[in-house]
């Protein structure tokens, strides 16, 4: 979506990867900030990588003004420049019974440095959360689409998928 009118024809939103400085600038220069904030109040919104940065409440970088959907603080490019970008095996846990491990690609990825009590962590890498959810807002440090993972899309956008009760290891045998 590129203009506020586009929001009227969608049920949910994925804020994708890219550069958060660019996203932040264009959100303001194309008058999208308030329409996005209003949309996010009662619609599911998922942010991946730069999208996660835009989902945050706090980003300690004056070049980026986030939308504030998730009560977290995010550091940009905290995992290093491109030559540090990598694919890692990360374990995800959606409830006490379900844990699943799969390949996760981090590209110049942001790191969640602080978070509020209302945030549920569903994936951690090297001691830092890389997947967090709060109500109908989901934030990921990585790019599920690069590894053909649609689990997070199901969780957020398809309530009938019963992701929380399925035996995920059978579905996503890696």
């Amino acid at each position, binding site marked *: 979506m590129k203009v506020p009118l586009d929001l009227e024809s969608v049920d949910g939103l994925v804020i994708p990867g890219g550069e958060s400085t660019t996203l932040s*600038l264009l959100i303001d*220069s194309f008058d999208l900030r308030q329409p996005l904030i209003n949309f996010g109040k009662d619609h599911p919104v998922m942010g991946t990588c730069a999208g996660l940065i835009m989902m945050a409440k706090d980003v300690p970088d004056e070049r980026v003004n986030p939308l504030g959907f998730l009560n977290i603080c995010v550091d940009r490019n905290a995992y290093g420049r491109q*030559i540090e970008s*990598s694919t890692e095996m990360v374990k995800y846990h959606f409830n006490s019974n379900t844990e699943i491990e799969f390949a996760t690609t981090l590209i110049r990825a942001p790191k969640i440095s602080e978070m509020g009590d209302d945030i549920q962590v569903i994936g951690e890498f090297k001691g830092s959360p890389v997947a967090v959810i709060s109500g109908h807002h989901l934030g990921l440090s990585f790019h599920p689409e690069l590894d053909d993972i649609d689990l997070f899309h199901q969780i957020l956008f398809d309530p009938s998928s019963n992701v929380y009760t399925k035996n995920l290891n059978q579905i996503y045998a890696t």
Partner: protein
Amino acid sequence: MSKGTFEVKVGLAEMLKGGVIMDVTNAEQAKIAEDAGACAVMALERIPADIRKDGGISRMSDPDMIRGIQAQVSIPVMAKCRIGHFAEAQVLETLEIDFIDESEVLTPADEHNHIWKHDYKAPFVCGCRNLGEALRRIAEGAAMIRTKGEAGSGNIVEAVRHMRTVMTEIKRVTRLGQDELVAEAKNLGAPLSLVQQVAKLGKLPVPNFAAGGIATPADASLMMQLGAESVFVGSGIFKSDDPSNRAKAVVEATTHYKDAKRVAAASSGLKKAMKGLDMSEIPIEERLQERGW
């Protein structure tokens, strides 16, 4: 864990789609580019228009200049090495450059071979004029392809020619049967496996960007509508009379490339674009696009 895989390299190229990558020669220009909404900058000592004018040998940039730009901006920083100059590429990787452009804009170091790019953790972008050239570069490990166009000319005609050629050749490949692809690969001068992949995908297996001669917001829109997934703007911004406004206008036109009203608004009130050169003013032996094999 795996760093520097082909998938991780293409991953960054994917994230640059829909954006504008701008040539900059110092930290001040880099800041103007970032503030205008560039999704990456290309650090180089002289912009192509000046390289063309000044002559002499054009080489990889001074590491101190590159570091100065890296310190200034948070977006990815790209830099150019000479065709076949793998030692320059090694130096750029040591500097933690986010994307290396093995570029015809610099003076070639090897007139037969390009760099074997699979050996590097840093991703590479390379220029092409046709599908065969694009697939040879991908075979060597390029994670992003761009048209060559004619750098420093301010003239879009060559970028259009190269993008049209690549797109037409892709369409042709998708219509061929398996039994015809071997001869097609021979004619293209490209590996069969990649030709088969293009036949299946209907597009290049890596992102396909436009470069070489983009000077106005409408030029950016034109290239996006012809199938480019992002645009590089070299001399077009910092050779114009108001770089900051022109940079913002090119970003807006690239984002809203299908919306002619937005492109019109972005094109309004700008000062003069770079003067530019007609192709008849550039002798064939001085055309940068002829470099590369």
